[in-house]
C-alpha cells in the first residue's frame, strides 16, 4: 500500500475520519476518505482507532440511563400553567391531514433512534389515532368516527404497526365499521369498533371477525366484543 504523498491532504482527510466513522460525511467527502483509506495503511490504522472511540463513546452514553418521569411531569405542568394563562389559538386542520401527517412520521422504521423509542412511538401512534378520531372537537363524521354506544355489534381490534392511515380508513370503510373507543388498554393499542348499529346474530359477528382476521396487513388482532 502507498501512503498519501501530500501531507496537507492527508491531514485534511484524517480530520474527517471521525465523521466518516459516524456516517455523517457528504457522499463526495466519504468517497475521498474511502479512497485514501484504501491506499494508506497508516491512515487505515488510525481509522481503526477512531472506530474504537466511536464504539466506546456510544457505550458510555448508553450507560447514562434516562430521565425519570419527574422531568416530563414538570414540563407538562409548566405547559399547562402557560396554557391556563394564555391559551393558544389552534389552527383548523382537516382530519385526514392530521392523521396522515402524524402517521407519516410515527412508523417505527422512520422513528427508531432506539428500539425503546420506537416502541414508545408505536404506542403514541395508536394514541394519536384514538385521540384524533375520537376526540377531535368538531371533526367531520365519516368512516372511523362515532360516539360510543351500547347499541349494535362490536369488536376489539389492534391495528398492525405498519398500517397506514389509508389502510385503516379503507379497512373500516370496507366493513362499514366505526371506531368508537380507544385505546382501551394501558399500552394504547386496542380499540373498540362498531360493526353494525343493530345487534347482529352471533354467527354473523363471528363471520365478520374471521374475515377481518385475514387482513393481517392492517389488523394484528381482532375479536368480537359483547
Amino acid at each position, binding site marked *: 500500500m502507498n501512503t498519501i504523498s501530500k501531507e496537507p491532504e492527508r491531514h485534511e482527510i484524517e480530520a474527517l475520519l471521525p465523521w466518516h466513522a459516524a456516517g455523517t460525511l457528504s457522499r463526495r467527502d466519504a468517497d475521498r476518505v474511502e479512497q485514501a483509506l484504501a491506499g494508506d495503511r497508516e491512515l487505515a490504522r488510525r481509522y481503526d482507532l477512531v472506530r474504537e472511540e466511536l464504539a466506546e463513546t456510544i457505550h458510555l452514553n448508553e450507560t447514562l440511563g434516562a430521565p425519570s418521569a419527574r422531568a416530563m411531569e414538570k414540563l407538562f405542568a409548566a405547559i399547562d400553567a402557560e396554557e391556563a394563562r394564555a391559551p393558544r389559538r389552534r389552527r383548523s386542520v382537516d382530519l385526514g391531514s392530521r392523521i396522515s401527517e*402524524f402517521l407519516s412520521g410515527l412508523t417505527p422504521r422512520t422513528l427508531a433512534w432506539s428500539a425503546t423509542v420506537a416502541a414508545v412511538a408505536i404506542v403514541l401512534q395508536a394514541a394519536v389515532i384514538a385521540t384524533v378520531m375520537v376526540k377531535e372537537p368538531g371533526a367531520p363524521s365519516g368512516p372511523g368516527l362515532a360516539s360510543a354506544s351500547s347499541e349494535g355489534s362490536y369488536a376489539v381490534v389492534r391495528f398492525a404497526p405498519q398500517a397506514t392511515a389509508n389502510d385503516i380508513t379503507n379497512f373500516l370503510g370496507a366493513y362499514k365499521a366505526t371506531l368508537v373507543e380507544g385505546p382501551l388498554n394501558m399500552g394504547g393499542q386496542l380499540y373498540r369498533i362498531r360493526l353494525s348499529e343493530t345487534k347482529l346474530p352471533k354467527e354473523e359477528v363471528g363471520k365478520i371477525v374471521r374475515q377481518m382476521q385475514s387482513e393481517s396487513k392492517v389488523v394484528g388482532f381482532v375479536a368480537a366484543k359483547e
Partner: protein
Amino acid sequence: MQSTSDEVLIGRIANGDRLAMQVLYARYHVRVFRFVVRLVRDESTAEDLISEVFLDVWRQAGRFEGRSAVSTWLLAIARFKSLSALRRRPDEELDEETAGAIEDPSDDPATALEKKDKSVMLRKCLAGLSAEHREIIDLVYYHEKSVEEVAEIVGIPENTVKTRMFYARKRLAELLKSEGIERGWP
C-alpha cells in the same frame, strides 16, 4: 423522513398541540438528557434542564424556521441551558482533571485487572475529558452531528470544529497513555 416528521411536529406544537409535544418529547428526551448530563455531570440538574429545554421548544416552536434539523435545534438549546446552569454554580463545578482523578481508584488488584481492559479504560478516559472535549466527541460520535451541525450547535466555525475534534482526540490519547495504553497516535 425523520426530519420532515419532526418539522410537522414542531408546526403542530406551534399551534398548541400538546400531543405533538409528547411525541417530540418521547422521541428526543433521552438523547437530550444524555447530552446535558455529560455536560453538567448531575442527573437531577439534567432533568430540570431538559424540562426547560422542551418548555423553550413549546414557547418558540412558532419561530423555528427549519433551517436546521430539529435535533440540532434541541441540542443547541440544551447546550445553552447547560452552560448557563454551570455558570450559576461555578464553585461546585469540579475541575475535569480532578474528576478524572477521583474516578481513578488506587491500583488494587481489581483495578489492575480493569486496566487491562482497553474498552473500559477508553470509556474512563472519555469521561475524564474536559467539558469542551466531551461535548464535541459526544456530538460527533453519539449524536451523529455533521461538521456543519456541530458548528451550529457549538457556535464556532466549521474549521474550528475539526480542529477541536482533533485536539479532543489527542487529549484522549494522552489520557490513555497516562493509563499505560499507547495507541501510536498522534
